[in-house]
C-alpha cells in the first residue's frame, strides 16, 4: 500500500542517497575539527554523538531501514539493547573496583596466599 512501485520494494531516490553521503562527509569534517579543539571532558561525548548520528544516517537511508519491514528494526534494536547491557554491566564491575570498604582489590586466592606466607 505504501509502495509506489510494482513489487513492494522501496527504491530510495538518488538525491536522498546523495544528500546522505554529503551529510556523512560533512559530519566527518566536523568531528575532525572539533577533536582538535580542547573541550576538556566534552571531547569524547561530542565525538561519540557525531558518530552515532552518522551511523543513524547510514542505517536509515543507505540500509533503508526507514522504509523497511518493521521486524528488521526490532532485530537491530534488541541487538543494540544487548550492546548497552554489555557495556554498562561490565563497567558496574570494572569502574567501581575497590570503592566499597569491605571489598579487597585482591582475589581471595591472593589474600590467602599472602596470609599463608605471613604465617610461615
Amino acid at each position, binding site marked *: 500500500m505504501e509502495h509506489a*512501485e510494482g*513489487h*513492494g*520494494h522501496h*527504491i*530510495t531516490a*538518488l538525491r536522498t*542517497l*546523495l544528500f*546522505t*553521503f554529503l551529510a*556523512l*562527509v560533512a559530519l*566527518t569534517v566536523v*568531528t*575532525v575539527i572539533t*577533536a582538535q579543539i580542547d573541550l576538556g571532558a566534552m*571531547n*569524547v561525548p561530542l*565525538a*561519540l554523538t*557525531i*558518530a552515532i548520528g*552518522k*551511523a543513524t544516517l*547510514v*542505517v536509515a*537511508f*543507505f*540500509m533503508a531501514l526507514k522504509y*523497511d*519491514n518493521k*521486524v*528488521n528494526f526490532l*532485530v*537491530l534494536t*534488541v*541487538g*543494540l539493547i*544487548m*550492546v548497552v547491557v*554489555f*557495556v554498562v554491566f*561490565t*563497567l558496574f564491575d*570494572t*569502574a567501581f573496583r575497590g570503592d566499597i570498604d569491605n571489598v579487597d582489590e585482591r582475589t581471595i586466592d591472593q589474600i590467602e596466599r599472602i596470609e599463608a606466607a605471613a604465617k610461615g
Partner: protein
Amino acid sequence: MASSSPATATAHADAHPAHLQHHFVSSDQQFDAAKMGMWLFLVTEVLLFAGMFVAYTVYRVWHPEVFVAGATLLNPWLGGLNTVVLLASSFTVALSIHFIQKGNQKALLINIALTMAAAFVFLVVKYFEYTHKFHLGIFPGENYAYADVSVPYIQQFFSIYFVMTGIHGVHVLIGIGLFIWLAIRAAKGHFTSEWYTPVELVGLYWHIVDIIWIFLFPLLYLI
C-alpha cells in the same frame, strides 16, 4: 513450463519465477526472509565488535591518558581519508541497489566495481599505516618498542588498535571477495529488478563494516 526444473514444474502452476524457491509463498516473502536473516547475522557482527568496544571502554576508564597519548601517534589525515573512502563505497553500494531495482544492469556492475576499488584503496592506506608503525617499533602488546612515547600502559592502546583495525580489515577483505563474486554474477546478467537479493544482502554487510569504522576512526585517531 518446459524450461523449469522438474521439481517445480510438477508442483506449481505457470507464472512461477525461476528464482522463487519451493518453500516460499511469494518472491516478496522469500526476499523478506533473506533480509531478516541478514539483519540477524549483522546483529551478531555488531556484538562481535561490541566485545572489543567494551575492552576499549574498560581500559580507557582505567587509563584515559594512554588513549590520548596513543591517538597522537596515529595520523588523523590517513584515518580521515579512509573514512571518506568507506563512506563513498557505502554510497556506491546504495547506488548499485538503486540501479538494479530499476533494471539497469550496466550501472549495477559499474557501482560494484567502484565499491571494490574503494575497498582496495582502504586496505592500501591501512597497509601503509601498519608498515609505518612497524618501522617505528610500534607492535601490539609486549612487543611495543617505540622509545619516544613510553607512557605507562601504552601497549594496551596499541593492542586494542591492532586487534580492532585488524578484525575490521579482515571484514573489508571478505567484502572485496563478495564484491568480486557479485561482479561476476552481475556481468553474467544474473540480477534483475525482479531478483537481486545477493546485492541487497552484501550491501547491508558492507554498510555495517562502514559503521564500525565510523566509530573506530574518532575513538582511535581523534580523541
